[in-house]
């Protein structure tokens, strides 16, 4: 931002109550009436998983699901989406259960630096909600609005395909990492579990 005149972002004098359902809970926050949805989500609601990458709707990092469809929160005035149901990356998992799309991104290398990941997850989840057997081309079209600089997209597409397979019920999802361990206080295995290659 350079130039002789800086655009002043005068906070509108009338802060208004902005209410919506974010990740399943009703949220009422006081926000400037001209606020951008991305700012409200990050600064007022506190869902910092929604990332700011470009402010121009070009990178897709700020993608959130509004009433089920993926939208760029940086191009959306908060006032426009009053009363809608918004899902951010924080709302994908069910308690400690990572959503299949999340565990698959983790497992198949869909996330490297991870900054674009929340946006990709939302775009991909929106696709899987509609279509649990997407083709390569359908996946590409669903994530075309998201830029990733690390992965070259290939492992992201692999991850989405793996998640689709869980959605179709062909593969079982993983148990959450925070589940009670089968043996919480073992002192390490004691039983002689004969290793191969080491005959007496």
């Amino acid at each position, binding site marked *: *931002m*350079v*130039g*002789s005149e*800086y*655009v*002043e*972002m*005068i*906070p509108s004098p009338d802060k208004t109550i902005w209410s919506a359902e974010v990740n399943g809970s009703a949220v009422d926050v006081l926000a400037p009436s001209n606020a951008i949805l991305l700012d409200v989500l990050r600064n007022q609601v506190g869902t*910092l998983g929604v*990332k700011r*990458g*470009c*402010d*121009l709707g*070009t*990178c897709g990092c700020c993608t959130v699901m509004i009433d089920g469809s993926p939208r760029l929160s940086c191009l959306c005035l908060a006032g426009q989406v009053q009363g809608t149901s918004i899902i*951010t*990356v*924080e709302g994908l*998992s069910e308690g400690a259960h*990572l959503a299949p799309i*999340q565990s698959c*991104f*983790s497992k*198949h*290398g869909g996330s490297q*630096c*991870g*900054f674009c990941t929340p946006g990709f*997850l939302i775009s991909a989840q929106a696709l899987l909600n509609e279509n649990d057997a997407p083709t390569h081309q359908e996946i590409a079209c669903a*994530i*075309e609005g*998201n*830029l*990733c*600089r690390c*992965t*070259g997209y*290939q*492992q*992201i*597409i692999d991850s989405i395909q793996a998640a689709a397979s869980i959605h179709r019920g062909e593969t079982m999802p993983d148990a959450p*990492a925070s589940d009670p361990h*089968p*043996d919480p*206080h*073992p*002192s*390490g*295995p004691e*039983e*002689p*579990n*004969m*290793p*191969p*290659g080491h005959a*007496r």
Partner: protein
Amino acid sequence: MTGGYRQQPGGAGPTTRKDGKRVAGKQAFPPPGSGGSDPVMKPRDLDFIPESVGGKEPQPAGSHIHDRARTGTTVGKEIPLVDSNAKVTGQAWYGDDVRLPNEIIGKILRSPHHYARIKSIDTTRVEALPGVIAVATGEDSPHRFGVLPVTKDEHAMAVEKVRHVGDLVACVAAIDEATAMAALNLFDIEWEILEPVFDPKKGLEDTDEPIHWRGKYHLARTNVQKRVFQEFGDRSLVETPHAESHGKWSMAGVHHGFTEPHAVVAHWDPNGRLQLYTPQQVPHYTHRALSTVLDVPMHQINVIRTFVGGGFGGKSDPFPHEMCAAMLSRKSGRPVRITFDREEVYWINRGRHPSHIEVKMSADEDARISGFDIDALIDGGGFASFGHVTSYYNGVLATAPYELGSFHYTGARVWTNKPASGAMRGHGAVNTRCAVEVGLDEMAETMQVDPIDLRLANLLPPHSRTITGFRITSNGMRQALEQVREGSNWDTKFRQLPLGKGIGIGCGFFISGSGLPIHWDPNRFPHATVHIQVDMDGGVTVHTGAADIGQGSTTAVAQVIAEVLALPIEMIHVRSHESDTSPVDLGSYSSRVTFMNANAAIRAALEIRDKILNAAWEILGYHPDNLVLNDRRIYYKHDPAIGVSYLKALHKAQEDKGSLIASGAYRSPPMGGVHKGAAAGLAPAYSFSSYVAEVDVDVETGIIRCTNVWAAHDCGKALNPLAVKGQIIGSCHMGLGQVLSEQMVYGRTGHLQNANLLDYKIPSVHEMPHVEPIIIESSDPEGPFGAKEAGEGPLLPILPAVVNAVYDAIGIRLRTLPLTPDVVFKGIERAIRKLKIDDPCDLPSPRLEHGPLQAKLVARATEHNVRDRARQRTEDTSPYVNGVLFGFDPNIPLEDQVEGWRTATEPDPEQLAALGLAGRAWLKKEQRQMGGEN
């Protein structure tokens, strides 16, 4: 386990006496901690234990010094990044996600002028604005800093003059962003506009007001920041060339394009310590620079590396905004957060240098490469950054993987009034590599040979030395070339595809860790240090400064420790965020982390392992040589039933001492020549890669589509194939952007016109070809378990592979990057005018008729294949230096064998007239030689 843990040793008996009274101190208490989540020991995974130590993992490149530390636990397995669950749930905290209580927002005033002197700054009106809490200008810190100690030329904010549009002038912190933005309008600044320089060629000339002044080391009155001359080898070989290639390249500057804009949070705590949160690849440099700029000792600063949303070299300089945040926090006593918008990311830049490169090369009648002549003029922008090194890398990293008769390089980096260029993935090597590989393709065509065979017959073998003295250890170049040839069906496609379809080859060579740590003598202080602590619970805490920028360095360190100690990876906890807790580490640049930190980690883990094995020896009575360390259990080699759990042995080892602590360090071996600049490009190991790309070119519109890439990369040993493949595909993506669409566009007025992600064209998912990653494992003798880098090298070959494929498709050599449709279309227009045809669809496709040299090359390649295999497996340990191919004896210094063998770092006076564009910098004298001011 029987007995359990008792408060007193040996107290497995009843806790009450015969008379019924309780015995004090004999109550059972729960065993401390766990031995991991799985109650059953996993059997040894022989598929991941090398053949040389009794496993089944094949070792085509021979055994490795770390083989005995292998337990088959994690190395070589596809393991998700250990921090990926935080990333997929939105819980990873990047720069702007650090929200401290009572924070205020900082904003930076940036220069609207390309080049101007600041006559005065009046901040009265800013300070009077309600809500403004602190203001800082250049006057607050006169100290210079810079990433390299030899070129400190930056200030936190402009002192005296601004050097490019977007240069920092002042900063302000206010209660909210809106107030801070409003305050930026209230600075009253008096400017004196100076004449800017934008064209790097003009930067070579004398000017009234050079952008920086280096005193007695300044080159006349030019804007040349660094000039390099290197000449090695037998120059008489190039006098009678059999084949030649000569090309002049113009390459646009490109940006890293990481998705996370820079952000920083500074908090000067009440004890007078600065806590600085920043997404940095190299927190240690920031640490040093902060100390200089702020006049506080380093121990009073804690640099906390947040998660880094992509770095690629763009977050490896200490940045002025980090100083600004610290100054504002010092003034206000409150945490200050500064976040860039996307435009500011381009003003701070540090992307790849816009370059003018000229490459001449020649081959003799045996198709040996008799000489590379490279001239690189690179546009450094307003500051030095890593440019000193880049100036060398543009030449010296082109000296391998081929054996050369001679090498001649002139390079110059000039300051211009544009945002500073710096280090970017494939630092300095990418542009010249592209030019060189395309030149080889052209020479192959002149000699009527297959370009892959030309390369195969001219490779340096493993365990050899390059012409400038780099020590090559493992070298998988040959396998890489062979595998992409086979995978792509090269022999049925090359020069046989119809017009508009093409296939091309490119190779790459890159350092795996820079041989010299920038700030200290490598003989006196190690490159990397890793601390390990194992406490009662059995979990392993690792302290390292390795900066994970998404490449998975944390995972790599955790993996090698898990491997050595045979523990599940979830038992390894890597702490790498804070400079307070991590040992000094140079961070993530020069592809050093896996090589150096994992090596240090292995050393530390081996120390812990020895302690645990010794404890097991005490318990079991068998010497550690006869013990097997397996998944959380140590047992007697010849009778697995005799064993002890990891935790029991650990507790035995902890008797008297408490938690086990070990420290491991990595130091590179002494290497390299003694000539000026010999240290540039030195590395303990080098990676090699080779790609074949297939493209479709629309001859009517000039649009290029890359459809398939076969990407073979020699990473020594893939510690984590999932991560290596991710790096290879990601490198392809970034290189493809540079060759096809990405460029920083500067207008006629010198203004950057596309400082946003809409006009700066990063390939989207639709532009990505299918990439077939092929991992070559040459097992580096000094790498951790044989590993070398995989993060930067894989970027190099994609550029020339695509450019060569475009030639194969339409028969036109293009030497302007990026190959946007307008560049390609202009090339097509020129070609049809020259060939006097009307329709571009009538363009002739290039065809190859093998000449007499082809058979000779194939024979030589076959012979070399045998030689390389023997050397790789160290069955042949005879010395080999660059020049043996030309008949020289490797045992006698080449200077003694060849009259006129050159090792020059300055041109002879009679050479001056013939030097290339960048070489013209050698026509100037330094101030001290001119009797100028000191």
